[in-house]
């Protein structure tokens, strides 16, 4: 059972702030995804946890032990690197057993553990193969088995699937999730792919400019974004600046309804977060609906049809299933309807 607590962790590279002041508590057995765009500090945070970088300030505690006082080779942390970083001069079996030998584990225990991991990762029969001759997916499995060989307190993965094709990536994501549940190892997974984070994580930590924007379950960050960055970063959202008073919710002189539901107690200028799939599109002008616009873009993505609708100069995104009754073309005048008062308002905006 391994709990990781980060308190005020910060790191600078010259004048660049990689991590500002990161505090986070990760429960034992949790699968955390650090999500953010390139340069947001997610890999730096992972490297600090692994002991490959020193933080400028802050504390890290793993099961109550201060990590900053432990060199990387003394921390019991398994890590899968973006490049996988397999030892090219060692075969599969010796790659997996490397850490066990470094820790002085007996040959008998080492062999048993290697056999167990080979089976667990589906690499039976590959033990004597050179890692150089393996396929991308097999290399991934060796890297995972090697990191798990020491039964680490923490399992770190730094964008391990970024170089794989979509099919293999999906397959390995499912395998990793299954393995993590099976072993109940506390896992931190770095990715810039939000769908990967959504499908893997128990909790997603969204980083931006070295700060945590929001940490929450995939559902929370998707449905209840706390900042404008998260609302724009996760999925595709429409951000509408609305004015709320006792009687009405107004968007650019359009009356959206009376304040109720999530906006009932809010007043003044607010940012309403409307998911593209939360709206309905009507192909004909409907005077009873409040938002009217013109279709400026339409594309089919699998089972979905995505449209951009120009409403008083603001582009509003709409998504619906392809077999939807409503079919529109570029240039059509359309109407958007929605239960506006059920939508989420960004707090503090």
């Amino acid at each position: 059972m391994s709990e990781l607590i980060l308190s005020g962790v910060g790191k600078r590279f010259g004048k660049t702030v990689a991590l500002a002041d990161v505090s986070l508590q990760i429960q034992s057995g949790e699968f955390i995804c650090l999500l953010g765009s390139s340069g947001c500090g997610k890999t730096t945070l992972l490297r600090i946890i692994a002991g490959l970088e020193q933080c400028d300030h802050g504390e890290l505690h793993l099961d109550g032990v201060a990590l900053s006082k432990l060199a990387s080779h003394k921390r019991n942390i398994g890590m899968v690197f973006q490049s996988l970083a397999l030892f090219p001069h060692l075969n599969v079996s010796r790659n997996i057993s490397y850490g066990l030998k470094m820790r002085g584990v007996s040959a008998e225990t080492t062999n048993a553990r290697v056999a167990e991991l080979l089976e667990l990762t589906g690499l039976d029969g590959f033990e004597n193969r050179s890692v150089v001759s393996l396929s991308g997916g097999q290399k991934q499995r060796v890297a995972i088995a090697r990191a798990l060989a020491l039964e680490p307190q923490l399992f770190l993965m730094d964008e391990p699937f970024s170089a794989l094709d979509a099919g293999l990536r999906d397959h390995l994501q499912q395998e990793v999730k299954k393995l993590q549940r099976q072993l109940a190892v506390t896992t931190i997974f770095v990715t810039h792919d939000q769908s990967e984070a959504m499908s893997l994580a128990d909790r997603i930590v969204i980083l931006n400019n070295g700060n945590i924007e929001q940490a929450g379950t995939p559902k929370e960050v998707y449905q209840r974004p706390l900042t404008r960055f998260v609302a724009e970063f996760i999925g595709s959202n429409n951000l509408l600046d609305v004015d709320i008073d006792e009687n009405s919710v107004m968007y650019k002189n359009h009356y959206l309804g009376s304040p109720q539901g999530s906006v009932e107690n809010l007043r003044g200028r607010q940012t309403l977060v409307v998911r593209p799939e939360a709206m309905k599109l009507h192909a004909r002008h409907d005077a009873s609906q409040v938002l009217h616009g013109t279709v400026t873009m339409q594309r089919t993505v699998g089972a979905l049809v995505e449209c951009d609708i120009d409403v008083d100069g603001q582009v509003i995104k709409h998504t619906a299933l392809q077999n939807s009754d409503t079919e529109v073309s570029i240039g059509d005048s359309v109407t958007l309807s929605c239960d506006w008062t059920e939508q989420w308002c960004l707090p503090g905006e």
Partner: protein
Amino acid sequence: MTGRSNGAYPVNSFVVRILGLTAFGILSVFFLLPLAYMVVVSFYKADPMAFYQVAFTWENYQKYFSSFYLNVTLRTLWSTALSAVVVVVVVLAFTAMLTIVELSRKWQLFWVILLLSMMCLSEVIVGFSWLILLSESAGIPRLLGALGFWDDPRSLSPSFGAMIIGLVTLGFSVVSLVLYPQLAGRDKSVEEAARTLGTPPYLVPFYVTLPIFRQSLIALTLTMFVYLLGVFVMPVMLGRPSDWTMTVMISDKALGDANLPLGAALAVVMLIITGALLLLSLYLSRKRTV
């Protein structure tokens, strides 16, 4: 439309053949013909008045198997192999470049320029520099004496050690510049992975970096070995006559004693020994995954 059908392939093939024939011609004129001539001359009789007399004799090869030349051969192989290993792995190039590639870009550039400058220096200038540095009157012995580390400072050259230093200096810049791009472009996450797997940082070069570069280092050592076998000036300037390598002996016999057939026979035997050693080394260092 294939390359062959649209005519591109035959044109390329023609160009490749012309280039190949040109290279073969150059190789023949500048390497194979002199080599063949040397082999032929090695069977001639010595004639001090005219370098050689056309004949067929094994006499020159019989002389090689006298204890004197065998000793020189062994000494040559030992000193050049030692220098090659020292320059490539043990002390200088590998460890130095491992350090240099960790420096900032500015300092890396400084060292690369310095190494290039060193490589541009002639063997004679490098030899004279070491001659001065190792001399009793102006060099390291005097400095050590002045600092009180050496009561009776004496010149450190000529000596076997001075000769090795000279050979190492010659090879250092070449090997370093060959290693630089390989070490600078290596995937450092492999070494980081070793650390997360329990390897203390000071052991990572021995457990991971050196084994990964094993093939390159062996190839460089062999290259240096062959290169240093042919070095002439350093043994003459910095070594004692008893330290002189076979290159010096060959030159001494061929030019000094005007015995071209013996010089040629010694060169042929050295060529055969070097070739055999290289083949043996390559066989022993075949890439194996463990």
